[in-house]
């Protein structure tokens, strides 16, 4: 099936929130220039006639001054205290956008500064402690077997420390929202991934009941996690302004520099590995310490850390594993959800470490993985028994074959001797990604979805799942049309609207096709049951039955409802972090070929092979696009994208200085799927969206290591950083 909204996006006909005709007030945000301190006062300039403006401070918040998320520590607008640069302190609205922009410069924030902390890797001084006793936002532990005893017996022990940097999402559409009051209801429409997160945030801070708020997702130009939690804040800001302005529409669109400076990034991380192996290279102990920079508030850091540590031991079998995780408060702009959600960080460390281990114990990195890749019936670090899915060794071998890995290694040996300043190498990464929410998360979400037969026989799917470029509209239409035997044109999907669509959970965590797609199938069955027909009633016959039913029941809705049910035999213990962390995993094996120019230390990816198993592939074109996009984002994270900061805030917050790859930096990306239908996923699908973010960075860094015989341990591996690494090696 072709992408449904593809032509509208290609031709520019699609209207994003900023394209909507708008008459009303433009909202702008007054932000803290200070990283930490007590707010003494807001000083309003005498040269501005403030009677023309709508001004909102924390005193105007009708409900609780907290952004509703895991903890209630982040204020909607800072009142007495600021914890990071760019923290929102006040809001201004005016019919002229230029006037609003000028006015925010007319509000001075007077702060008594306190001692900030920026380095998440060091123990804070007492004066820097702002959370608990030690600024640690969350501690997590996975403990399997006896690591110390196993290390004492190991033939080899290999240690390594790996670091990853922050990453900006660079969704093409900036954040934006319009709020107004209609018949007493606060209506917010804008760019977002999770309409019900926004509903919950509005209820909590505005002190309103659910029927007094309404959230509608506008067509959204990319999210990657950056529109998971942050849109709640913009929704709250526009809602507060519209309430203060008597219900007049208020629009806030962040420009690129405000968006990059003030919104979330991928969590920076440091991961320490201490690994024990036997004489055959079998893993006997993995001791892993994961530290992540959470930034100034808790936000989603505990769950990012959770996913990070669960993936930290990689797709390998080992009887003794101890993984200690910490998310730490700093006075940086809070870090947040980003495609992969902690797993890319720990996979980078683990897969880079596997090559370091192989080199140190004199083993081929391919053979080291072959010995240790998890086999059917073996257990992960959390004790989850792996059953089903592609054969992991077969997946790896296929990637090596497609990439001509061994042939390339031989070619590179002679190329690297013959060439004056170019060096080539190939690198491999094998990895996995848990699909859907972690542990009992999906049970807790209890997602719901409706399918409704319309008067003309068409069928509407009512869901809060969002399209943000990833293909939800096409996939759900396809699933429903196949379930009911209808043409795709007979399936209706409208912009998610919380006044109509039930809470299908957030559009995150690679869960939409697998978890919510399955709810589409089940709701279709439920609608058939309501109609009193069986699964053999399809197509035109079904349409006639719907039309007839609606005629006979003029005052009723023909609705099929579904709610998430956990697949059987999934058990997770949140206290001990043992059990089935995910209902299922997707698996991948990626190979990168690189060329390093020793004149400039620039690294170019020459070739890329991505082989994965993601259950059944529902739409080959969309799935390939997801993988290719993830690989490109991975190339950026691995080599180019460096967030530069001052006082914990980004200073290269423009696309001229925050460098993402262009098509010229991207090689041919050869994508292959091995299909193993997953019984409990929509159409047999498992999670796909995040997996392709996990493999590229370690594969690329391993290829650089092979090309230069050095061991990069920090990404982004910019040219400057590689130069330093080469100099360190040369002098040691």
């Amino acid at each position, binding site marked *: 099936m072709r992408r449904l909204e593809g032509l509208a996006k290609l031709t520019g006909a699609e209207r994003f929130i900023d394209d909507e005709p708008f008459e009303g007030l433009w909202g702008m945000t007054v932000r803290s220039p200070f990283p930490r301190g007590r707010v003494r006062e807001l000083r309003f300039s005498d040269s501005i006639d403030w009677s023309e403006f709508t001004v909102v401070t924390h005193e105007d918040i009708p409900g609780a001054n907290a952004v509703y998320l895991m903890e209630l520590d982040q204020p909607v607008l800072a009142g007495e205290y600021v914890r990071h640069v760019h923290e929102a302190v006040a809001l201004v609205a005016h019919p002229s956008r230029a006037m609003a922009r000028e006015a925010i410069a007319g509000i001075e924030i007077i702060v008594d500064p306190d001692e900030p902390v920026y380095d998440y890797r060091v123990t804070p001084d007492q004066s820097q402690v702002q959370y608990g006793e030690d600024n640690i936002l969350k501690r997590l532990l996975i403990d399997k077997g006896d690591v110390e005893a196993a290390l004492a017996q190991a033939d080899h022990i290999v240690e390594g420390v790996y670091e990853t940097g922050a990453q900006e999402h660079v969704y093409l559409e900036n954040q934006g929202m319009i709020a107004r009051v209609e018949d007493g209801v606060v209506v917010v429409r804008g760019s977002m991934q999770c309409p019900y997160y926004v509903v919950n945030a509005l209820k909590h801070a505005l002190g309103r009941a659910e029927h007094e708020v309404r959230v509608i997702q506008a067509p959204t130009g990319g999210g990657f996690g950056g529109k998971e939690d942050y849109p709640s804040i913009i929704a709250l800001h526009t809602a507060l302004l519209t309430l203060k302005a008597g219900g007049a529409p208020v629009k806030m669109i962040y420009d690129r520099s405000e968006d990059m400076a003030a919104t979330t990034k991928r969590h920076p991380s440091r991961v320490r590995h201490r690994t024990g192996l036997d004489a055959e290279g079998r893993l006997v102990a993995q001791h892993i310490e994961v530290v992540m920079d959470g930034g100034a508030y808790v936000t989603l850091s505990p769950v990012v850390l959770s996913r990070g540590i669960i993936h930290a031991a990689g797709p390998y079998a080992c009887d003794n594993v101890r993984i200690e995780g910490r998310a730490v408060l700093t006075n940086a702009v809070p870090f947040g959800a980003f495609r992969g959600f902690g797993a890319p960080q720990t996979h980078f460390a683990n897969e880079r470490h596997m090559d370091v281990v192989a080199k140190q114990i004199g083993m081929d990195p391919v053979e080291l993985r072959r010995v240790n890749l998890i086999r059917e019936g073996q257990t992960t670090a959390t004790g989850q028994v792996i059953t089903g899915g592609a054969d992991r060794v077969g997946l790896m071998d296929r990637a090596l074959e497609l990439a001509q890995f061994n042939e390339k290694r031989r070619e590179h040996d002679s190329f690297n001797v013959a060439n004056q300043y170019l060096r080539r190498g190939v690198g491999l990464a094998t990895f996995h990604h848990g699909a859907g929410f972690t542990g009992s998360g999906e049970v807790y979400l209890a997602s719901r979805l409706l399918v409704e037969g319309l008067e003309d026989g068409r069928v509407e799917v009512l869901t809060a799942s969002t399209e943000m470029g990833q293909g939800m509209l096409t996939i759900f239409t396809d699933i429903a049309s196949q379930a009911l035997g209808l043409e795709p044109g007979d399936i209706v999907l409208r912009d998610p609207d919380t006044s109509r669509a039930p809470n299908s959970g957030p559009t995150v965590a690679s869960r939409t096709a697998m978890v919510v797609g399955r709810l589409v199938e089940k709701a279709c069955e439920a609608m058939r049951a309501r109609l009193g027909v069986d699964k053999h009633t399809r197509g035109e016959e079904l349409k006639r039955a719907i039309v007839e039913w609606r005629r006979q029941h003029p005052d009723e809705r023909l609705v099929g409802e579904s709610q998430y049910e956990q697949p059987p035999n999934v058990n997770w213990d949140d206290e001990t972090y043992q059990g089935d962390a995910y209902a299922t995993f997707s698996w991948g094996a990626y190979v990168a070929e690189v060329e390093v120019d020793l004149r*400039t230390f620039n690294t170019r990816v020459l070739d890329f092979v991505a082989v994965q198993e993601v259950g059944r592939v529902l739409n080959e074109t969309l799935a390939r696009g997801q993988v290719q996009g993830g690989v490109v984002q991975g190339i950026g994270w691995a080599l180019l994208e460096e967030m530069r900061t001052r006082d914990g805030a980004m200073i290269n917050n423009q696309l*001229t200085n925050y460098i993402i790859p262009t098509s010229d930096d991207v090689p041919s990306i050869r994508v292959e799927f091995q299909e193993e239908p997953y019984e409990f996923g929509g159409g047999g699908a498992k999670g796909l969206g995040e997996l392709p973010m996990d493999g590229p960075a370690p594969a690329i860094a391993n290829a650089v290591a092979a090309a230069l015989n050095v061991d990069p341990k920090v990404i982004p591996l*910019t*040219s400057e950083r590689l130069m330093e690494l080469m100099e360190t090696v040369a002098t040691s």
Partner: protein
Amino acid sequence: MTVLMPESLDEACAMLAEGIAKNGEAPTPIAGATDLFVEWPLHADAHSRSYLDMSGATELRAASIEDDAVHLGALTTYWDVVVNHPLVAEFPLLLEAARQVGSVQIQTRGTWAGNIANASPAADGVPVLMAYDATVVVQSEARGRRAIPLDQFYLGYKKTQLAPDELIVDISLPRGLRSVEIFEKVGTRRAQAIAKVGLAITHSEAGWRVVAASMAPVVTRCAHVEHMLEEQKIVKTPQDFLNAIEADVSPIDDVRSNARYRKTVMSRLLYHDLKARCAWIE
């Protein structure tokens, strides 16, 4: 914001003079406006200025090849050069540099003269023009025309010899045989990048020209490096260039790179690129 739209070069010069007389400030000349729009969202003061749109001065559009020199009129775009096959056959670095500027869209709007006047130390077009011994011809209503060698055009960061009432009208490049022509642009990515290190090298009867970008407050010739090459001083490793580089340029640490990287890379480019062409580089 005011945009003045002269229909000839003389009218443009008159408008500059008039702006100074009336407002004490000349309108800012724009051709492709590509530099202006990059900065536009960040500089509110740019929104209230006066601009002089040069596009009506069509006599400045032509590029011509004459017996002893080629001339690029001030409105010649990068793309005009890219598609001028006889010109780039003789001056291949113009093509290489032009294709490294921004994207194709920028190349079709941005002008060589604008690149000179904008005076960015990271300019892509200026290094190759300077390595080709370009001369800049400027004109004002009061004083007529004068010619300034490009390698003397810059006085300091964003400071040039161009007076407020003067416009660049022509860039001329002397014709002649060259035995070495090299252009290197090192950016963070392969396209649409800002140079972290730029380098243009030529060798002809007039001698060596080594021009560096993003290495100093201005695009500059590197006299000490040129001298090393003239003297055919034995070079055994890239580091052997570092003293001369230190004497010629003064790169900084900034948001894009750092000084040590810039100097190291310049030395390595000089070494590896010239090794195959110069027997004295081992």
